[in-house]
């Protein structure tokens, strides 16, 4: 055990902080602390430009190996980058799906051709990606995918038909990775393929889904004979589930540390308001503020523990507890924010339905316990996979 960063890492931290101070300013000043969950619709053009700015400075894909254009940063350095990025108010990343999910997946499972075709665009902050997993009948039961991929011998390409749903940022993305059924007779985890699909084609229709926040960052995506070239399947037909699950392993990596810095900044805001408006005099609010602080520290220590030893970024057993914990904690923080604001919490700042930062936090955190595996699914995973309890029986409908 050594709970410190090395001198080299501290120097790296300074380098990151300096670069952000010198670049996240001027034209980019308005996008500080903007974007991200609940605020994805804000400053889209500016945040796309910011992605390119990051890339020019060499701050995209820092965890990728150098041979693919990354910085080859250690886990510690990635943690430091995420911490400093969040502290500086770095806007919600638009390239995060490509950088943290697609990139590592292609590096691990992609062909040379796929790496060459896709990694540079992600690294350059140019190509944005979205995730084509969930479907109307495949939510918690992700393996119940119905979208079909059929190989057309005449044109030597795949034809995709079906529907995806809850696809974040689909309307801003150049590409989507899609889990689709390559064997029409198969069910469940067998017979799936993992496809890299160009969104800019007649076979793809995108329809935004307005949320109870009044904004739309999710979409429905319809594939009607959408084409995907023969070289754009990752792994073999039938091997899609393995690739799709490996990708999710990367999802719960170092980005969680940056998320915690965002949480810290939200908590700081709430504490500040509680002091200003007198809510901090209420004993029940004081207790909940302390609980929030305690919970956040627990998450931080545990994340660092999860990272320890996991040099390849692979998901460790302890990681299973993390989603359940942060989602519940964050949801409670949203409620605390509203209680601290009191009657003001009900007022919108602007017509037609413009939420302030803490209202967004409150409303959006109601989704935290749902997306990426509901709290109920997470508890089942912990019970069945970590504790080895008997599996929940499945139905036959």
């Amino acid at each position: 055990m050594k709970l410190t960063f090395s001198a080299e890492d501290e120097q790296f931290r300074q380098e990151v902080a300096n670069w952000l101070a010198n670049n996240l300013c001027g034209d980019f000043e308005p996008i500080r602390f903007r974007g991200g969950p609940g605020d994805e619709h804000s400053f889209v053009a500016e945040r796309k430009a910011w992605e390119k700015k990051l890339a020019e400075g060499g701050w995209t894909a820092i965890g990728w190996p150098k041979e693919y254009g990354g910085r080859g940063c250690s886990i510690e350095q990635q943690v430091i980058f995420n911490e400093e990025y969040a502290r500086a108010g770095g806007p919600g990343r638009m390239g995060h799906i490509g950088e943290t999910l697609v990139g590592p997946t292609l590096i691990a499972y992609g062909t040379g051709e796929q790496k060459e075709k896709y990694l540079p665009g992600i690294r350059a902050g140019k190509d944005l990606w979205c995730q084509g997993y969930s479907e109307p009948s495949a939510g918690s039961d992700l393996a119940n995918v119905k979208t079909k991929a059929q190989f057309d011998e005449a044109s030597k390409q795949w034809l995709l038909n079906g529907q995806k749903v809850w696809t974040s940022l689909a309307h801003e993305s150049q590409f989507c990775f899609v889990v689709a059924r390559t064997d029409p007779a198969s069910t469940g985890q067998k017979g799936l393929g993992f496809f890299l699909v160009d969104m800019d084609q007649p076979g793809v229709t995108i329809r935004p889904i307005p949320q109870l926040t009044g904004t739309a960052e999710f979409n429905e995506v319809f594939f009607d004979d959408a084409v995907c070239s023969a070289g754009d399947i990752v792994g073999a037909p039938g091997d899609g589930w393995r690739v799709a699950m490996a990708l999710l392993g990367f999802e719960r990596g170092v980005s969680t540390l940056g998320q915690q810095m965002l949480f810290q900044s939200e908590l700081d805001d709430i504490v500040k308001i509680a002091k200003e408006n007198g809510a901090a005099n209420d004993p029940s609010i004081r207790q909940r503020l302390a609980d929030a602080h305690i919970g956040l520290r627990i998450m931080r220590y545990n994340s660092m523990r999860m990272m320890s030893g996991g040099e390849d970024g692979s998901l460790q057993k302890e990681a299973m507890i993390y989603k359940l914990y942060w989602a519940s904690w964050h949801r409670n923080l949203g409620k605390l924010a509203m209680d601290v604001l009191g009657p003001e919490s009900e007022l919108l700042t602007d017509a037609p339905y413009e939420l302030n930062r803490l209202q967004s936090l409150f409303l959006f955190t109601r989704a935290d316990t749902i997306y990426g595996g509901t709290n109920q699914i997470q508890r089942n995973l912990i019970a069945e996979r970590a504790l080895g309890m008997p599996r929940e029986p499945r139905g036959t409908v």
Partner: protein
Amino acid sequence: MDFTFTDDQLAFRDSVGSMLENEVTTASIRERWTGDSGENGDMLNMLNEMGMNSLLVPESCGGLGMDLVDFVLLADACGKAALPESIVEDAVVAGGLLSDLLASGQHTDQVQELLGGVAAGDIRVGCAHIINPYSNFAHRKDWMLLANGNDVHLVPKSDLKFTALKSVDPSRRLQKVDWAPSRKTRVAEGEVGAGLQRATLNRGALAAAAQLLGLAQAMVQQAVDYSATREQFGKAIGTNQAVKHLMADCAVQIEFAKPVVYRAAYTVGVAPQRADWAVSHAKTAAGSAAELSARNATQVHGAMGYTWECDLHIWVKRAWALAKEWGDAGFHKNRIHEWLLQPNALLGPEFTFGKRYIDHSDSAAA
């Protein structure tokens, strides 16, 4: 000891409830969101025809002369329907305060005339309280009852300035009301005024609590229905214990909150000077049941419950607003512990229910 309602009370609830169920469709609620006034004129007429406006108005003024026990089930029904119109607050809070003014002999002629107009459905009176900085649908009222220090004022619309504010709940039309108190508009002052305001807060919190009960039940019902039809892993999601338990937890809180709300309604009627803790208990219990129901019903709906298209958020957002209006959980829990921890609190079994509680004259322990 009898917690049951009379057949008349239940029949009244059923007729109002079924009218609301038929007329207050979610499509019609969404229409109100885009309308100028936020209200539906036909609905206001129907509510008036059913006697909602005149329920608490004394018979001498053309009203039905009923009490809050009669009203509590109707408020529950309004919550169940997520009725946007502010009929519950108008009838219980404004109507209650006007009746109090009449009973205390303050400005009898003017108050009597207004009560008659309210009962006939010709005049609309609203009521604000210092605990709520904003007043729902105040701009639609002909008169507002407003507080200034201990004083209570009755102010015509022409002397009020409204600033419309947007609520997270699109069904609500909050107004900031600016006005200048004058001797002309003052209807009560000093101790009398303070007592009236305290009673107003209790009636407002009780009205909110009863609606929260209805909101909570409606949300749970929607989630229960959804859990029976939505399938994952080859079976309805409601077959999973994890999903069942979310709903069972809500049902337990709702059912345990009901007698608390009924008791508060009774106490406000028979011993208003001792109603604070009973009302605070009701608001806390119903608010907590409704907030849990909002959370768990959304959770059971999964991502679908997070969309604007899914009707659930109509109820969820109202529950959030009403849980805070007329004092949030922190305020009401503070009132409970202040009562509980005072040296001469009336705490024995003889004070839990019954005559000794109502008759006890030690006002310091109220």
